[in-house]
């Protein structure tokens, strides 16, 4: 093997990383643009005829249990809540009383009236009482712990945000469905919404 002369040095070729760097720098803004800035979630909703199709076994189990048939109708002046085809707060001897909401609008707090005015695009006399609705859901859940379905409907002019807020209240604001384990947390009330047109 030939010996290297004293003055000669082994030439080490360095990898040219510039093209790689160029690609990397282009990838960063491209990926940043494609990324979601806000954290997204989904609310699964069932249409009326497909939602109530549980397995046969479940059907048998439910036969022994009383059906709640909880319905919430969102009106411009509040919520109408009915269970087992009987509206809450309806006049004596009537199954429903379309003139009166079960939970009427409440007084303005934390600027909710302005927010709802923006959503409706017109002046509002108060705010939806989601706290009272959630309390009502809790009350029903205590009586029917096996139930998780609620049928929601609304007047044609109700904005989507109000419908979503109603779903949140019926599910329970502290409800976390993405928890480990088979058991659902007790703070989850009615988390399977069925959206129905023109029910009430």
């Amino acid at each position, binding site marked *: 093997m030939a010996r290297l002369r004293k003055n000669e040095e082994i030439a080490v070729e360095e990898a040219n*990383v510039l093209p790689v760097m160029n690609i990397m720098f282009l990838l*960063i803004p491209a990926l940043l643009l494609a990324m979601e800035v806000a954290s997204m979630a*989904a609310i699964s909703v069932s*249409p009326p005829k497909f939602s109530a199709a549980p397995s046969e076994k479940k059907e048998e189990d439910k036969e022994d249990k009383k059906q709640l048939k909880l319905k919430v109708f*969102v009106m411009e002046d509040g919520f109408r809540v009915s269970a087992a085809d009987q509206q809450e707060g309806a006049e004596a001897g009537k199954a429903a009383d379309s003139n009166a909401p079960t939970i009427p609008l409440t007084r303005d707090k934390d600027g909710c009236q302005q927010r709802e005015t923006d959503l409706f695009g017109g002046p509002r006399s108060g705010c939806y009482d989601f706290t009272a609705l959630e309390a009502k859901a809790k009350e029903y859940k205590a009586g029917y712990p096996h139930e998780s379905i609620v049928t929601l409907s609304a007047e044609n002019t109700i904005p989507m*945000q109000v419908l979503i807020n109603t779903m949140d209240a019926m599910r329970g604001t502290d409800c976390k*469905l993405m928890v480990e384990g088979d058991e659902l947390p007790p703070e989850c009330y009615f988390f399977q919404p069925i*959206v129905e*047109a023109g029910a009430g």
Partner: protein
Amino acid sequence: MNAEELFKQKKKLKKLARRGKKEEEASLGMTSLMDIVSIIVVYLLKSYASDPVLIQPISEQKIPMSKADSPIQNGDAVYVSSKELMFNEKKLVALKDGELDENAIKNKHLIQPLYDALVEEAEKSKQMAEQLQQDWEARLIIIGDQKLKFKTLVDIMYTAGRAEYVEYAFCVIKKG
């Protein structure tokens, strides 16, 4: 550079040439920069790959806020802003004051352009699922606007139901 400095540099070069050495060149150390950039790219790629459906709101759209925490599952996405209804990056129907154009609606609830687009997409998805030997999920993700009226929402769901979609999900921004 003045004449004296130029002379000194030339002298230095001659000296180096005599000794058989080349002039030393300063090089930029790229290794640490490469490390940082690689880590960022890997992180971004990973977060990009973890989303089954990429939601990119369209103009004039305010997605509703919710405390729901369920992740978005795979499905076909319909975007509805206060001005337009979009599917597969195509504007299908115009909206005025949160309501659909009357000419696009048939039989009170059916949105004809959306129905045609959904039927076509459903066919494609079914074929794809068949090739992959999987069941078609038949899920529609509705990315609506905060001000979207309930009537419009019902029309969209009715149209999707007619196009054989059986599962619906409302896309929301996680709150709190």
